């Protein structure tokens, strides 16, 4: 429960209000898995859960992409190389790539949701022959909000990568429309495919339903839930979601396990 003291060694501005921090830890963490999260503590401000956006081989160096939406995330985004912060983790259950081995794969990311999915794509690329056809569908608010453009361009050399934005901008010649419309561009059959979906909850609901309509099974869809995680160890109860605790039972869940609860409006 005690945070490890860490230091920012690099800071990359990804877009408006979004930065990636490369963080060096004083003590190595347990090797994280794709989809897990750390609690990042901005000293004097507070602590927030942030997914790992990469799973580097060195366990004393971690990468987090942070979107500035509140006091704590703002303080984290303002950190500069040399600044210190506290880190606890890694926590939770991440993406399960096992059922995707030997199958076709769809990765659907909306906005900052690409950050926790980046390790999934990197894992697939590192063992490309273990997977079938892979389509990566990316949605963002505007072209300026698209994350990791250099990486996604490189992915397109060996994966089908489709990108769309909700709002166009001068000079943008890519697609405009919601991310679910990109499903129609997938060149392979989605029956028996495994899908990894992350983004705003509304986007994940519509994304999962669109995948079901295309023949993906509910068990074949994994989503990364976001709730108010404060302790990250099931003690505080803030992230309770029905019978589940998002911090320890998730944040990644099979769609079949959360679908019915997402329809309960008070949860």
């Amino acid at each position, binding site marked *: 429960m005690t945070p490890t003291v860490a230091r920012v060694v690099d800071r990359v501005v990804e877009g408006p209000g979004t930065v990636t921090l490369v963080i060096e830890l004083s003590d190595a963490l347990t090797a994280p898995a794709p989809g897990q999260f750390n609690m990042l503590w901005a000293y004097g401000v507070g602590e927030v859960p942030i997914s790992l956006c990469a799973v580097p081989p060195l366990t004393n160096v971690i990468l987090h992409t942070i979107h*500035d939406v509140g006091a704590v995330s703002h303080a984290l985004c303002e950190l500069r190389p040399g600044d210190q912060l506290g880190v606890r983790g890694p926590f939770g259950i991440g993406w399960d790539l096992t059922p995707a081995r030997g199958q076709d794969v769809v990765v659907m990311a909306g906005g900052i949701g690409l950050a926790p999915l980046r390790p999934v794509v990197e894992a697939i690329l590192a063992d490309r022959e273990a997977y079938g056809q892979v389509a990566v569908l990316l949605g963002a608010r505007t072209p300026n909000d698209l994350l990791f453009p250099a990486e996604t361009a490189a992915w397109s050399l060996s994966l089908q990568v489709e990108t769309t934005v909700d709002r166009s901008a001068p000079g943008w010649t890519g697609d405009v429309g919601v991310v679910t419309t990109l499903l129609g561009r997938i060149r392979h059959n989605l029956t028996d495919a495994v899908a990894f979906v992350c983004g705003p909850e509304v986007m994940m609901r519509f994304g999962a339903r669109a995948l079901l309509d295309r023949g993906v099974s509910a068990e074949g869809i994994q989503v990364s839930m976001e709730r108010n995680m404060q302790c990250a160890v099931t003690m505080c109860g803030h992230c309770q979601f029905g019978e589940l605790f998002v911090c320890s039972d998730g944040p990644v869940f099979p769609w079949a396990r959360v679908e019915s609860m997402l329809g309960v409006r008070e949860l």
Partner: protein
Amino acid sequence: MKSIMETLAAQPIFADIDESTLTLLAGCARHQRIHAGTRLFTEGAPATDFHLIREGRVALGIYTPHAGLVTLETRGPGQIVGWSWLFPPYRWHFDAEALEPLATIQFDGHCIRGKCDSDPVLGYDLMKRFSTLLDADLRSTHLRLLDVYHRAPTS
């Protein structure tokens, strides 16, 4: 190149359609190749036809004096471009421009309306099929209006 009948039969909106209806539709259609940058239609002009895209992408947008064509949405393979041929006053509300070289099936809207008017059963069947696409477009637009990627700052 596949025949028009084969191409139409492979489209989800024409799934389970009977062959005679498909023949009627194909009678109002032709293959079309369109260069990138071509304006398919222009706001205010008579809406006489529409396209089913086989290859390439189309930008739907509104022309503004300072920014040129502001893209509202793009359409790609398997999608239909243009609905104003179906509704009075049969004038385009937007511009459409080919972003890439296009292969389409171009339909004569007046021809299809005429066949639907003379055969209400056919007209109802086609209207139901086209309505599913309009419904999908409307839902997509509603989702974009939600601006789901924008998160208002919290305290």
